[in-house]
C-alpha cells in the first residue's frame, strides 16, 4: 500500500493565531490524514474557509505566522529515504524539497508574477536555484519547454502586464512543471478564467501529468472541475475531511449528507428542476461546534452527532466517510 504512496499526511492539526481583542485561535485544519498516491490526480473540494488552502500550505511546509501546526506529520517517501517535511528547517525544505520534489501553483496565480521581471528571468532564476545549471542553458531549456507545451515563445521576453490573465496563468503552471517535480500542488489553478481558457489550463496540467506520471493535488471549490479531472476526491467541511472516494463513486454515489446536499444544490445545464440550498451557514472556526461539525445544518442529525465527532471509516471499498449514518454506533 505505501509502496505507491507519493505523500502521507498524518493527523494534521493546524490553524491561525489571530491577534485581535486578545488572541484567538482559528481551527483551520483539524485531524486530517490523507494518503496520496503516485501517478494520480487527487482533488480536494470544499467551500471558502474550509481549510483546503491552509492544508496545502502545511503540506508544502510554508509556515509563516500566524499559521501554526499543532500536531501531525507530512511524510514524503523518496527513493532512498523518507523525508518528514514538517521536521525539516525551512532552509532544508528549500534545498531538498521545494520545486525539486514538490512544486506549487498558488491561488490567484494570474497575479503572482513579479511585475518588474521578464518572464524569462522567472524561468532562469527558478532553474538556477533548483537545477544547478548555467544561465544560457536554462534559457534554452525554457524556450524548448514552452514550445513543447504549445505556448508562443515570444512571451519569454514580455513583462507580466503585457500578457493576458490566461497566458500568465499558463506560464505559472509551466513554471511549476519545468523542474519535473514528483508532486504538484495546484490551488484553484483555473478560477477567474473563462471556461474556454479554463479548459485549456486544465488540459495543460492533465497532459503533463500523463507524460510525467507524477502526482497532482488539485484544490478547487468547483466540483465540476473535479469531475472532469480527478481520479480521487476528498471533500472538506469546516477543517475536516468528511468524505474520500474515487470520482466515479463520489459523483455517482455520494455518502456524506453534506456531499449529497451540495451536489443536489448545483444547477445543471438542461435541467430546470427546483433545487434546494443547504440551510444555515458554515461554522465560525474560532468556535467550531462540538461533535460532527456539520450537525447544525444536517437533516439526518442524531443525538450523538452533537457530542462526539465521527471517525473517517471505509464504508465501501476505497470509499471513506465520516458520518454516523455509516459507522453505526
Amino acid at each position: 500500500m505505501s509502496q505507491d504512496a507519493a505523500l502521507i499526511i498524518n493527523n494534521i492539526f493546524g490553524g491561525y493565531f489571530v491577534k485581535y481583542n486578545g488572541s484567538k485561535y482559528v481551527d483551520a485544519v483539524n485531524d486530517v490524514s490523507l494518503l496520496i498516491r503516485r501517478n494520480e490526480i487527487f482533488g480536494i473540494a470544499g467551500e471558502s474557509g474550509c481549510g483546503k488552502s491552509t492544508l496545502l500550505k502545511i503540506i508544502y511546509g510554508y509556515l509563516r505566522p500566524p499559521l501554526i501546526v499543532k500536531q501531525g506529520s507530512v511524510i514524503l517517501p523518496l527513493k532512498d529515504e523518507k523525508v518528514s517535511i514538517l521536521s525539516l528547517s525551512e532552509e532544508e525544505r528549500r534545498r531538498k524539497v521545494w520545486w525539486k520534489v514538490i512544486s506549487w501553483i498558488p491561488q490567484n496565480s494570474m497575479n503572482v508574477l513579479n511585475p518588474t521581471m521578464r518572464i524569462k528571468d522567472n524561468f532562469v532564476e527558478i532553474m538556477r536555484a533548483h537545477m544547478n545549471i548555467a544561465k544560457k542553458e536554462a534559457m534554452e531549456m525554457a524556450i524548448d519547454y514552452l514550445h513543447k507545451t504549445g505556448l508562443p515563445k515570444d512571451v519569454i521576453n514580455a513583462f507580466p502586464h503585457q500578457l493576458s490573465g490566461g497566458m500568465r496563468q499558463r506560464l505559472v503552471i509551466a513554471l511549476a512543471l519545468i523542474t519535473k517535480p514528483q508532486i504538484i500542488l495546484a490551488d484553484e489553478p483555473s478560477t477567474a478564467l473563462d471556461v474556454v481558457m479554463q479548459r485549456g489550463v486544465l488540459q495543460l496540467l492533465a497532459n503533463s501529468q500523463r507524460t510525467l506520471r507524477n502526482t497532482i493535488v488539485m484544490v478547487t471549490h468547483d466540483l465540476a472541475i473535479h469531475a472532469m479531472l480527478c481520479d480521487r476526491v476528498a471533500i472538506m467541511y469546516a477543517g475536516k475531511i468528511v468524505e474520500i472516494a474515487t470520482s466515479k463513486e463520489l459523483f455517482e454515489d455520494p455518502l456524506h449528507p453534506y456531499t449529497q446536499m451540495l451536489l443536489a444544490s448545483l444547477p445543471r445545464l438542461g435541467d430546470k428542476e427546483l433545487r434546494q440550498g443547504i440551510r444555515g451557514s458554515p461554522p465560525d472556526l474560532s468556535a467550531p461546534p462540538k461533535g460532527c461539525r456539520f450537525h447544525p445544518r444536517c437533516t439526518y442529525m442524531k443525538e450523538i452527532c452533537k457530542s462526539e465527532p465521527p471517525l473517517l471509516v471505509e464504508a465501501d471499498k476505497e470509499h471513506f466517510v465520516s458520518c454516523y449514518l455509516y459507522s453505526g454506533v
Partner: protein
Amino acid sequence: MIERSKILLEVKDLVKKFRYGLFGFEFKALDKVNLKLGEEPSICTLAGESGSGKSTLAKVILRVYKPEEGIVLYRGKNIYELKKSEVKWFRKEVQAIFQDPFASFNPMRKIYSYFQETAKSLADIKEEAEINKVVDDVLAEVGLRISDIKEKYPHELSGGELQRVAIARALLTKPRLMIADEPVSMLDASFRVSVLNIFKQVKEEYNISFLYITHDLATSYYISDYIAILYRGTILERGPIDEVLKRPLHPYTKMLLESLPTLDLRKREYYMHPIRLSQIEEKEFLATGCKFVSRCPYAEEKCKLQAPPDKIVNNSIVRCWLYHK
C-alpha cells in the same frame, strides 16, 4: 407605437468608451449593443466572461455611466433625458444588486438606514411604524426578520444574508426591473441556489423582470427565460434560453458550451480534446471586424474587415457572417 409600449427596456446601438491605462488609447467597452426586454416579467441572462463589458452595460442601464452613442429606453423614455420628477420614478422602477455584498453597503452605516433612506425618498413612506411594517414584509420575502438586521452593521452578517438583505432593500420600491450583477458568484455553492430561488419567487409575486448578469451558464439556465451572449463588448447571440443553449448558432456560444465542465463523468474524455486558445486577448477589443475572429474556427477574410450585422435565425438573433449566406 403599441409595439413600443409593450417593451420594458430597449437598448439601441449602445457604445461606451474607456481609456486603457493612465495615458493609453481609447477602446470600446461596449460596441453597438442591442437588447430588448418585454413587458411580461421574465429573467434575461447577460452572459459573458470577465472583461466582456457586462458590468459596464449594467451601469449604463442604471444611469451611472453615460454612453457616448446609442440610447437606452425604459418604457419608451430615454433614461438620459429624464425630467427631475422622472428621475425619481426611474429610480423606483429600476433597482440593482451587485456582486460583492460587502462592497455594496457602506461599512460605516447601519444596514437599516438603507431601508429608511429608500422608504422615505423613493417609496414615500414617512412614518417610522409604517416603514417598519413594509421592511418586515420585504425581509420576510427573503427569509429574514427585521430583528435580524435592525441594529447591525454590514460586517456582522454573512455574505449570503447580506445579499438577501440587498434584494429586500431593492424590493422596497416595488421595482419593475432588477439588475443583478453576478449576484451569486461570490457566495458559497451551498447558498447560491437559495438566492436564485428568491429571484424566481419574486419574479412571480412582484412581477419583476430581471437582467441577470453572470458567467455561469448552469445557473443562468436554471432561472432564465432569455439569454444574451456578450463577447468583448458585443452581443454575439441572443434569444430564448432553451433555443440558445440547446441549439447554439454562433461559434463562440458553441465553444462556450463545449468547454463547460460538468458533473457528468461521461464527458471527461471529450473535455480533454485539444482546443485552440487565444493568445492576444487584450487586442480583441480593438478589432474592427468581428471581435471573435482571432479565435474562430470558421474565420474568413471578410470577418476581419467588417463586423457582421444582426440576423434573425429561428427564434434567436445572431451576429455572424455564417448566417448571411
